[in-house]
Structure formats: C-alpha cells, structure tokens
C-alpha cells in the first residue's frame, strides 16, 4: 500500500535519490521541502501520510521542524533520514516522537520501516 510522502532535505541530489528509493517501493511523493520552515508550511498544505526529515539543514534544522509539525499534528508520522550517527541521535528521535531514524547511506532500510508502521 503506497503512502503519500513529503521529502525534506536541503540537498537536491539527496531528494532525488530518496524519491527514487521511495517510488521504487510503490509510494507517491507529494512534495519536497529544502528547509525546516518550508517543511512545516508544506505539511499543513499537503497533509502527507509520512514525512522523511533530514537533520542538518541551514536555518531551521530537522529536529526543530519535526517538533513543530508534531505540535500542529500529533498523529504526524516523521522518519528522520540523516548522515548523522544513529546511536547518538536515536534518543532525540524518541523524545521528539518521530517514528524512526534511518541512515542515508542505507536508505533502502526506510522501505521496511514504512511497511512496519
């Protein structure tokens, strides 16, 4: 069952790669944001089933953006997709209320995580 997904990442090449991974898994990309502020705005307009969120972004980072989205919508499903160390950030991920953390270099794992949600 394909989900409607919003991709948030400041790198256009990463958004392209994540889009390819997700569409190959049968999902639909409804929007792309390149910073936290756009992410929050697009979430409110598009109401996607799921958000993939990069962490290191200039301006508002992914953690702050995730918190804002979850304040607006408790049921928001956010998966962090980052280059940063998983062990170090998995605690932050749980505290914020996101559904998971996937490392960008193993982006294929995200499809399994989405199916389990």
């Amino acid at each position, binding site marked *: 069952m394909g989900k409607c997904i919003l991709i948030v990442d*400041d*790198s*256009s*090449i*990463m958004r*392209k*790669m994540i889009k*390819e991974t997700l569409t190959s898994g049968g999902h639909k990309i409804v929007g792309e944001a*390149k910073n936290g502020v756009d992410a929050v705005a697009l979430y409110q307009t598009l109401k996607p089933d799921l958000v993939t969120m990069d962490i290191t972004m*200039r301006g508002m980072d992914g953690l702050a953006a995730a918190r804002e989205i979850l304040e607006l919508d408790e049921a928001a499903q956010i998966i962090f997709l980052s*280059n940063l160390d998983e062990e170090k950030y998995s605690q932050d991920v749980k505290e914020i209320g996101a559904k998971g953390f996937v*490392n*960008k*270099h193993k982006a294929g794992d995200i499809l399994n995580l989405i199916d389990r949600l």
Partner: protein
Amino acid sequence: MSEFAVVHNFMLSNRNKISKVSNNRISKIDTHPHSLRKWINIFFIAFTSGVMVIAVGLVFYTSSYEFSNFLTDEHSDLIKIVSVTQKVILALASVVIVGLALLWFYLQRFILLPLNHMRKSAEHIIHGKLDQAVKITAPIEIELLSETINDLSVNMQEILLFVWNQTENSLRCIEEDTYENPNADMPTNGLDTIKNNLLELQQMISSFTLYDVHMNRKRVFGKSDSD
C-alpha cells in the same frame, strides 16, 4: 602516489593560493574591456558632466550679450520668461544629476557588491571550503543566484558524506573480518557488504549527467568515442 592523494595535496597547497587566484580574477576585472565597474563609472561621469555643461551653457547663452540685445524693452515679458527658464534649466539639471548619483550608489551597493561577495564565496567552495553559506541582500534575481550557489555547496557536501559513510562501512567490515580471521588473506564474510556499498556509491554517481563522459561498469568513455 594514488590519484586521490595527488588531488588532495593539490587542494591543500592551493588553499593558501585562494587569495592569489582571487586577486588574479580581480585584476581581470580591472583590465577587461567590458566590466560593470568601469562602464558604470564612465556612464555616470559622462552624463553628469554632459548635463552640467549643457545646463551651464544654456544659462550663459540666455544671459549673453547677443541674446539680451535681441530682447528689447518691448519684450519685457520675454525677459521674465528667460530668467524663469534659466532657473528651470538649473533645477532640472540638479534633479538629473542627483538621480544619476542615486543610480550609481544603487548599482554599487546592490549589484556590484553582492556579485563580488558571491564570487568570493564560490571561490571558497571550489577550493573545498564548504562550511560557509553566502548571504547577501540584493535584488531577487541576484539573491536567487546566491541561493543556487549555496545549493551546489550543499550537494557537494552530501556526496562527500555519502562516500564517507559507504567507505567507512566497508572499512569496518574489513577490520572486523581481519580481527576475526587474522591469518586469512582476504576478508571472507564482509565481501557482500563491501560489494553492496560500492554498488550504492556507483548508483549515486549514476544520478549525475557528466560532461563529455559516459560510464559503464567496465570503463569510462569520452562521449564522442564509440564503445
């Protein structure tokens, strides 16, 4: 020395030459026949001088001996009009000169300065310093360009991080295997993982369209060559 080491040393030694390259580009601006800086200055000086000369000339002409001889007492109204005209000419000339000065300042502050700033930031990026974002206040056309330069830098960083992570993963695989099988010649268990990491690296590179080059798994070709 491997090719990467050559490139790495080249970039390290050139970090100190950034200012030299930048100065070369600055002198190119000074000597190039078509430069904004030169032509804005020429335009401003030429038009300001032209306006002043014309205005002063007209004022002198209208108060000259020949012209005032032309006007007799019968033309007293005309004399009033002429003196009013002189004031109008001077007023118009002042307005035009002030307008030109404002235009000059606008071009300096909102076009030339941001362009220089962006060029310096882009030079940092090409020398491997990806830690600074270019931030300028300028007309939207120029701001959008600076944003795009930032995006180029972000993409470059993402690619480098991706390569780092994949290679780190493979290295750890090898080190674990070496630890488990210290006498073996080749890593035995981790080969599949390493292969996948390498394939993913190549997949990422395939997202790009390269200049004059195409690649398949065996070799790299120039686009004009046949397979």
